[in-house]
């Protein structure tokens, strides 16, 4: 379980408050969708969750343990995948699995076992001896996902995981996320595809202008706003909470 309390992030360089006040509760065995318009602070929040960025204030707890004190231990239980993260193009999926498995102190047997399972699932097995930089976008994303999940993490953070992928790859990734959910993993998704939220997520958090404005189950979202669909609820929450000031030059890509 992940608890986020009054998270705030102000970038020192340009004094931009990317995240002003975000509080969320994310449970194991569920898919949590993080929603928000571009520049709302979703990626910055996810980067703080994955330990890439340090919060200016506020706290993040993983199973009751505060992030700041146990960063290295918590990192070994997290997987974070965004479109910006790539793998070394000179290496084959096999070599990459050996390297990243080693960084997570996995034994050779464990690496082989997980590699065979993930490569088989994502259809990488026949390309395991080919260089990563010769792969198509979809194959690269699948390989990144397999390598990212190699250490069998408890928490999986995905920033727009199916962005730019064909429908077959999207379905493959979605079904794997559902499999992980059944295994009791905690999955956090950032997406703009509200249809995906309706189909897959159990709970949803909405961030507008760096503040969390909703955190609850997907089924609660529309009724809580007095509307019928998730889309309508999202738009209503956005209009009610959006500061009129134009968000220009916000730090962090959304």
């Amino acid at each position, binding site marked *: 379980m992940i608890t986020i309390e009054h998270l705030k992030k102000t970038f020192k360089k340009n004094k931009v408050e990317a995240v002003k006040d975000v509080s969320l509760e994310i449970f194991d065995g569920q898919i949590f969708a993080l929603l928000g318009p571009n520049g709302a602070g979703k990626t910055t929040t996810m980067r703080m969750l994955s330990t890439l960025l340090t919060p200016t204030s506020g706290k993040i707890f993983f199973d009751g343990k505060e992030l700041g004190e146990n960063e*290295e231990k918590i990192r070994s239980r997290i997987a974070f995948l965004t479109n910006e993260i790539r793998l070394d193009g000179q290496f084959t999926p096999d*070599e990459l699995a050996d390297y990243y498995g080693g960084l*997570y102190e996995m034994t050779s047997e464990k690496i082989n076992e997980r590699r065979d399972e993930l490569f088989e699932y994502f259809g990488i097995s026949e390309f395991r001896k080919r260089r990563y930089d010769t792969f198509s976008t979809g194959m690269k994303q699948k390989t990144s996902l397999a390598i990212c999940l190699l250490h069998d993490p408890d928490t999986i953070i995905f920033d727009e995981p199916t962005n730019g992928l064909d429908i077959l790859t999207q379905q493959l990734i979605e079904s794997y996320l559902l499999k992980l959910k059944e295994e009791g993993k905690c999955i956090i998704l950032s997406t703009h595809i509200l249809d995906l939220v309706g189909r897959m997520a159990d709970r949803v958090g909405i961030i507008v202008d760096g503040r969390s404005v909703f955190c609850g189950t997907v089924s609660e979202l529309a009724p809580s706003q007095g509307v019928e669909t998730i889309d309508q609820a999202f738009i209503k929450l956005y209009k009610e909470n959006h500061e009129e000031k134009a968000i220009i030059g916000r730090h962090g890509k959304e």
Partner: protein
Amino acid sequence: MRGVGKIFHHEMKKIIKEKSLLFGFILLPVLTLFITVGISLLQPKTSGESVETYSIFFYGIDVESYNIGSLDDKQIWLQAVEEEPSEFICSEEFHKSDVLVDFSDLTHVTIYYHASNTISSYLKMSAESFVRESFDMSYKTQKRGEIFRSVELMDINEKDTSNRMIAMLLPYMLILPLTANIANFASDTIAGDKARGTFYQVMLSPVPPLSLIMGKIFSVSLISLFSSGIYIGLDVIGSKICEKAGVEDVFGFAGVSVTVGQVLLILLYAVLLCYLFSNLGVLISLFCKDANQAQTAQIPVTLLCTLASMMSMFRFGTSPLQHYLIPVYNICLIFQDLLNARAKMGNMAMVAISLLVLSVAVLILTLVSYKNEKVRT
């Protein structure tokens, strides 16, 4: 230091697999070999023809310069010098055909000459006769026969001044490829990884920052040192080619005469220097968005280091203690001292410690910077 070996191993494999990086450390030295050998072969043969006069230099007594005759249609001059004999015999003014008579201790006169050079050996005999005749005269006139006067003949080749050319050039020849290679490899190892998006995946792993940074520094150091070794090794091969062709190579390796101890000490200081440069390269690279930006940011460092090594080329004799406190320049002085067999233990220790202290300081700065938002976004 958990994971440092894995990072190091991965980085080494990455460099070896990257053909564009391999160009920098294998193909360029080979091209340099062709250029240096080519230039050397174009040089006029230097078997004494360039010397227009022969000289017998005197140190310790005041004599007017005068012509005492000629040999092979070239004039022989007697000249007084003010420079210390140990420095003068290493200078460009003192040719292989010349002789230096050191009168600084009148009870023990030393004649420096090149035993391998016929002219120098002939002039040595003349100088020796001159000294003995002068002393005989002095003995007869001043009645100071009870003082023992000896004449020592010192073969300069045996005194190991043959390394003067390489001592002058080695700092420059080592520092230039070293800084250039480190700028190249260090830029790619972090800034290049950031641009490709591969750095974040490692940052997200449980490997401690110190291991990550050290793994990268070690790989940059080793590959840069190896590459610089190729440069120097190929130049030595080039010099041998030139020697066989009957010309002196432009880099002056032909006269190298070093002991295993000297080589090991030079290697030790090269390793220390390489480690410092790698630390610096990685620190700069950490703040850059891509390899090109990092390489541009490292140009001033490369230029400053090259300048320091070039300044050391025009230094003869011993340097004051404070010169050994100037970073980079001090290691150039140590390289020269080691090759000229005049290195002092105190100076060597001071330079080694200063290099280590600087490296640790840069490493600490790198670790602090690793947490910086600019590095992580």
